[in-house]
């Protein structure tokens, strides 16, 4: 039966979380059932406050073969990390 059902990616926002995080995928016949299945499969232990589901086929992904050209150039750009600043003692939460 699941072969007939589309695959959905599930994103859950935790209780203290600021953003939805990808937690896995599942099969469901439509969006409503995908939300229900996500609730049953991924939030049984109170993991979430909010669920997003999206058809896996609607996700546009980068090509793994482009990994080098897309991401390697950032390796040599240490100045993009905010590590060259002196953080005043008064600043909290950094």
């Amino acid at each position, binding site marked *: 039966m699941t072969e007939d059902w589309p695959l959905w990616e599930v994103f859950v926002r935790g209780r203290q979380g600021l953003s939805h995080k990808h937690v896995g995928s599942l*099969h469901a*016949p439509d969006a409503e059932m995908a939300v229900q*299945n996500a*609730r049953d*499969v991924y939030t049984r232990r109170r993991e979430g406050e909010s669920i997003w589901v999206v058809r896996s086929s609607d996700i546009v992904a980068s090509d793994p073969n482009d990994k080098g050209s897309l991401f390697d150039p950032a390796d040599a750009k240490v100045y993009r990390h905010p590590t060259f600043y002196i953080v005043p003692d008064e600043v909290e939460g950094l």
Partner: protein
Amino acid sequence: MMAAADDPLFEYLLRLGDNDLILGHRLSEWCGHGPVLEEDIAISNIALDLIGQASLWLDLAAEVECGGRSSDELAYKRDVLDWRNTILAEQPNGDFAVTMTRQFLFDCHHHALLTALLESANTDVAAVAEKALKEVTYHRRHSGEWLIRLGDGTEESHGRAQTALDNLWVFTHELFEADGVDQAVVAAGTGVDPAHLKAAWDAMVNPVLAEATLQRPADGWSIRGGRQGVHSEHLGYILAEMQFLPRAYPDAVW
């Protein structure tokens, strides 16, 4: 809590708890056999919700009885004639359409019942109802969405859902019939009159049946008696499986 062993509230609480425990046990039979992994987990979740609710109701029943029986003893040491669940709850799972149709008919009644029990004069009853209602709101959503998809699905699924509805309808009348126990708890302000739940049940059932393109069966011959201890043959088999261990190994712990 001060109460006598013949308090009608005891009998009433057994009815509430027994419905949950027997249907919860029925649903647990699907564990590992669900049509898909996602639904297997969903049904098991609902089974666990119901068994959890049963334990709350039977804890209260044990307290009201003041007879020294614990909720475990109420669950595991009563024989068929002492069970007070409706006959609908003990019906076999059948195919997935039967399970979901039974669930939906039950859930709508359960939802109306718990909503009414929020007003119970007994604060313990109202508190359990409040906790359970959140769970049952989801149960009803899940079974209702499934019934719509089965009824308004393929010719095969529609036929199975309609057959399930036709066969199970005869067990729904019992849900709305009052007897002396009901009248006593209504008078005490602790329970609700089953007949008063019918309008709310209709308001939940009818729109879903319409969306599912299923024909609401005519009210005709019906069967009753579970709440008074007169059950179908199925209950004995459920109890045989459910009670085997504590009866074979009394006081076993794990």
